[in-house]
């Protein structure tokens, strides 16, 4: 049993859903100890009120104006982190992976990064994590008194509200000199009407073979819309600029684990598989039946995607209309 601090992730003044996965992981680590949530950044007051029903002992908030830089937040988070917690937890989003290691280095804590499961062995917390692009599952322990943990959003279900309401306390912001060396100039947030990749039940992904941004729009998006799916992509498609980089799935992109993953014209390189092989059912549409995606595909439609995708969209609309 230990007290755990969750560092909430904010986007445009709202708590991101990633925070709820961190709360779930924190409950496992705390094993009956208290959980506090630190809400830091612009809009912290609003985000604090969003997180008040999740059973935290208290919510600590620090309003810090202007955009996020780790350098600007690290002092405040480190001060709170040092005040009696056994573990500091966030989701391993690009935010958690940027901020928490800086905090860890400051307070001398070891980090278990991008963790997929938490167990206890002989009284010690053991963290399981995929390595080598998901080809090795490693288990590690952290040898420092305070442990910093970032967790995979797809492996820790979003916490459900547990009722009650946590008291909100202000904490003093502490901004150190290094912050003056970085100036936040702007954030371009990608907006989409479709479900978020990490949360979607169905993901439709396209690869290099789609050949253009227009084909993504005119072929893949109607299929995604018919299924109520999120859209993803291979690195090759992101590199070529067919879609924005935040849609990349794989070792260095996002990890997804939907009920249904449809890979359209994606070869299935090791680095891509790392991001999607945890999906329940995997479909490949590819004209090459030898493509490595076959190693993980449950269903494989050997076809030219330019014929198959519009047909599939029509078939899905038909069965949906029939109910």
């Amino acid at each position, binding site marked *: 049993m230990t007290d755990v601090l969750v560092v909430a992730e904010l986007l445009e003044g709202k708590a991101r859903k990633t925070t709820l996965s961190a709360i779930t992981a924190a409950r496992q680590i705390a094993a009956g100890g208290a959980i506090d949530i630190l809400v830091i950044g612009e809009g912290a007051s609003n985000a604090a009120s969003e997180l008040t029903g999740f059973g935290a002992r208290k919510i600590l908030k620090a309003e810090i104006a202007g955009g996020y830089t*780790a350098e600007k937040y690290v002092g405040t988070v480190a001060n709170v982190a040092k005040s009696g917690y056994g573990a500091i937890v966030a989701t391993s989003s690009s935010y958690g992976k940027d901020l928490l290691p800086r905090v860890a*280095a400051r307070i001398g804590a070891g980090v278990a990064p991008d963790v997929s499961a938490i167990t206890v062995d002989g009284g010690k917390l053991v963290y399981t994590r995929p390595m080598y692009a998901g*080809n090795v599952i490693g288990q590690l322990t952290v040898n420092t008194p305070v442990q910093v943990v970032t967790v995979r959003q797809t492996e820790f279900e979003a916490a459900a509200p547990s009722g009650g309401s946590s008291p909100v306390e202000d904490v003093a912001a502490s901004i150190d000199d290094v912050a003056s060396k970085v100036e936040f100039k702007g*954030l371009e947030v990608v907006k989409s009407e479709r479900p978020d990749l990490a949360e979607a039940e169905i993901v439709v992904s396209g690869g290099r073979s789609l050949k253009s941004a227009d084909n993504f729009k005119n072929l893949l998006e109607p299929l995604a819309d018919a299924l109520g799916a999120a859209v993803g992509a291979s690195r090759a498609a992101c*590199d070529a600029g067919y879609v924005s*980089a935040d849609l990349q799935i794989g*070792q260095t992109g996002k990890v997804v684990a939907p009920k249904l993953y449809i890979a359209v014209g994606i070869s299935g390189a090791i680095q891509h598989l790392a991001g999607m092989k945890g999906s329940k059912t995997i479909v490949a549409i590819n004209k090459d039946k030898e493509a490595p995606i076959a190693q*993980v595909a449950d269903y494989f439609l050997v076809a030219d995607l330019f014929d198959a995708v519009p047909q599939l969209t029509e078939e899905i609309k038909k069965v949906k209309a029939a109910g």
Partner: protein
Amino acid sequence: MKILVPIKRVADPDNANKVKISGDGTEVTSEGLEWKMNPFDEWSLEAALRLTEDGKTKSRVGEVVVVSIGPKDAVATIRQGLAMGAERGILVEGEDKKLDALVVAKILQKIVEKENPDLVVLGKQTVDGDSNLVGTYLAEFLGWPVANYATSIRTSDDGKTLTIVRELDTGAATLEVKGPAVITTSDRILHPHAVKNGVTPDDFAYPESEGGRYASLKGIMAAKKKPVEETSAAALGVDAAPQVSYVSFKLPPARSGSTTFVESAAELVQKLRNEAKVL
């Protein structure tokens, strides 16, 4: 401009599914697999070379030092970096098993203090450990800013200020950073226009490429004569012990079931509905 580029050798990432686990489950073995430069480090090195050259005339206008911490054999990876165009190399001898982000960052800190580079450019992650920690640790120990997941780096004409675009889950953030600074690179750092240094003409575009530049024969010959300094953690005065211990490794469970090949979109939809029950 002087740039330090830490590089690590990793078991051939395109064959990462062929690594094995030792009988007692305490070690990952990559026998039979070729050692390769961690792809992100190759990209970082290429970005650093672009920042220290006139891209148009290919003349060098700065210095790149590559450093690797690992067994003696890792010198081959350093030579590869020198063949690509880095000026010097440093090998810090160490056993891979006894390194974690803390130890690596502490060693790099000492090297930075000796070398005084304007920038340290690292990969966002090594593709074996996939940890994504060292760059940030190093920046914190140095009291420097870090721009993680850079997709674009532009320097001011005097090279002291950098405009960096960071790739995020939610979009992209732009930072202005005063050097010296740490940068970690993301996948798209080798886009033809991603790196601008105030020397290479602004309209110059690098060719599209998925990796760093090939070492020419001349480069490979030259690399043999370039200096590689050998040192150790102890000689650098680093006695940090790892903060994390890997207690076991396993291979992931194979996906169960086999692939069903289908003939048409209609058949696929029927199977997804009636067999997999996901529609």
